[in-house]
């Protein structure tokens, strides 16, 4: 009896403890210091995106890029200290919504780098817009995000609606393909991208198929491709499936070109496909390759990690906010106005916002060779 009672109490306490930790955020700040004279104390920008979980790499690439921007800012403006507080959403829109509320309630946060994913951006857009808190995303590419009339949402990358026509153009002009087989993974991103490519290619499309995420055996799809005599395959989806798909295509004797979008631009593509099968694949992205200079600074600021997809855009996003703070815009409303009228060169492109979208649209094509993803070149 006594033991049962104690156990029950312990269980309640443990459950309460767990509930309380769930309310807390995983936050980490970089470079803190004493406040300057003409800027408010404890000025912060927030990062909202995945830091742990299945999509951690994608979010960490961006927050690391932002770290570099913060480091540059701190070296140039030691009089007005700014820190970055990271909010880990694990890429989940539900978690992002709760974290957005916390960010909005913290009055020392004047701008947000992120949200990283399109799903999170869609879920938190209304909240940030209502609070007048400016957000600059490095990677949310869903075209619909700028149709909601949010004055606070900005992104420094081209959308999937820009990527698809450029991909189709590349297949038609550069690859000179005559018969293209287009495959997607039935996800909102993959299907959207593939449908855009299908539209751009018109009657060059010789066949279509849709696979599923987490699928590992593609023998039926491979059969369709080989029997259609296609000389190019476009895959709309993520790297895990793309890698296995290209591997099985090559094993079945497919000799044509393979192209995919930014969801496949990850070293995981080469891991899944194997260096031999991945060679020759072309992966496009609205993200720019890192310059040697940036790579050096990135490694120095991030424990020798290599820059990844959207790292340079992460730098640009944070830099816009920090430039605003350096120009004396230290309140939410003044920083929002500053970003809306921003017109300067960034690391990746010239940045000027038109209804939240960046006006310069560049899509890069990255070729895989020698077991590595080579630096990308813009698609003309």
């Amino acid at each position: 009896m006594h033991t049962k009672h104690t156990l029950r109490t312990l269980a309640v306490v443990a459950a309460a403890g767990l509930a309380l930790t769930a309310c807390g955020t995983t936050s980490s700040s970089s470079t803190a210091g004493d406040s300057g004279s003409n800027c408010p104390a404890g000025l912060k920008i927030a990062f909202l995106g995945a830091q742990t979980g299945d999509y951690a790499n994608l979010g960490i690439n961006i927050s690391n890029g932002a770290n570099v921007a913060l480091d540059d800012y701190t070296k140039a403006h030691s009089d007005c200290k700014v820190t970055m507080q990271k909010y880990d959403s694990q890429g989940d829109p539900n978690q992002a919504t709760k974290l957005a509320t916390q960010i909005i309630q913290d009055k020392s946060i004047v701008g947000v780098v992120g949200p990283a994913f399109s799903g999170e951006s869609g879920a938190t857009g209304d909240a940030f817009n209502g609070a007048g808190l400016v957000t600059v995303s490095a990677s949310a590419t869903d075209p619909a995000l700028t149709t909601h009339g949010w004055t606070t949402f900005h992104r420094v990358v081209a959308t999937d609606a820009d990527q698809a026509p450029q991909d189709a153009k590349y297949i038609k002009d550069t690859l000179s393909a005559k018969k293209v087989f287009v495959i997607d993974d039935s996800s909102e991103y993959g299907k959207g991208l593939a449908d855009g490519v299908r539209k751009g290619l018109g009657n060059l499309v010789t066949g279509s198929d849709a696979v599923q995420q987490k699928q590992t055996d593609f023998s039926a799809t491979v059969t369709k491709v080989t029997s259609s005599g296609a000389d190019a395959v476009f895959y709309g989806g993520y790297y895990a499936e793309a890698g296995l798909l290209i591997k099985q295509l090559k094993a079945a004797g497919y000799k044509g070109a393979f192209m995919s979008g930014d969801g496949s631009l990850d070293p995981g593509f080469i891991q899944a496909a194997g260096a031999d099968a991945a060679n020759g694949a072309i992966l496009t992205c609205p993200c720019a390759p890192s310059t040697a200079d940036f790579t050096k600074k990135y490694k120095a600021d991030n424990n020798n990690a290599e820059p990844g997809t959207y790292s340079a855009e992460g730098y640009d996003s944070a830099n816009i906010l920090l430039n605003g703070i350096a120009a004396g815009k230290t309140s939410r409303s003044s920083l929002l106005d500053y970003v809306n009228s921003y017109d300067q060169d960034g690391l990746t492109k010239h940045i000027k916002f038109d209804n939240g979208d960046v006006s310069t649209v560049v899509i890069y094509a990255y070729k895989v060779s020698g077991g590595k993803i080579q630096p990308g070149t813009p698609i003309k």
Partner: protein
Amino acid sequence: MHPLALNFDFLFSNFSQLTVTGLALGAVYAMVALGYTMVYGVLQLINFAHSEVFMYGTFATLWTVYFMGGTARTSGFALARMLTVAMVIAMIVSALVALLLERVAYRPLLKRNSPQLMALISAIGASFVLSETMGLRDNITRWLGLNDNFSRYVSGARDTRGLPMDIQTHQLFPIGNYHVTNIDLIVICCALLMMLLLDQFVRRSRLGRGIRAVAQDPESAALMGVNSTRVVQLTFLLGGLMAGAAATLYMLRIGATRFDAGFILGVKAFTAAVMGGIGNLRGALVGGLVLGVAENWGSALVGTQWKDVVAFVLLVVILLFRPTGILGESLGKARV
């Protein structure tokens, strides 16, 4: 293309390719299904964690290849030797995981005569623990301070990890307009051989008789001197060995794995076991092969996004007309 426009033309013109590759896929399903069906036949327990037993086998294959110095250039005889050793090790590892599972997750509950529901919940919990342990292996080695030595094995813990080499497919002989490859042949023949061995073992050996006895009636079996604990252990061991072999064959075909690769395959394999007749070894074999081929045919007819729908509709149709599955009878024959 209208979703209901069945593409028979494509199916028939590529019949042999779809069927042979479907059989190769189905062979892997069948071997994993054996684990599910045996445990169900003996314990009336759905061993949800069997998918993780398979997943650990795939990682054992991968790590053995790393350990034996496999690189992108390994091929031919050296590669064959490496993969054979990897298969043996994968079978041992999977068997050990299965035995561990039995000891920790099921035996305490069975000893206390807990309701089946408890064992089911334990199975689900064990499945999560096993898969997440694999998914967090880099954190674990960091805590143990072993990071540098094992970085190749534990990096990218939640990512897809692939074999370092590309296993070259050689086209052997044609069936219809498809050239059967060496990998297709190895997978199908290896799987059939192992299942044949298992079937003979259960039917003819003394230990196999013990398994069938416990499946039929545990109390009478105990009265006849069969040690039910040993029999349960043996059942898990055999299921694990089969899953380990299936894991290597899977790596041969797919070449890459992840910490959650077991889940979907486990669901499919369990479906195959039910389709063939749960508790029936030959049923698992038939169910697995049927499922693999049906998935491919379904993908060809309607489109790959409907693949799973086709598979499960087939399951429902089969159970409607034969509620006990295709081959019906169970391990102990008299089981109701």
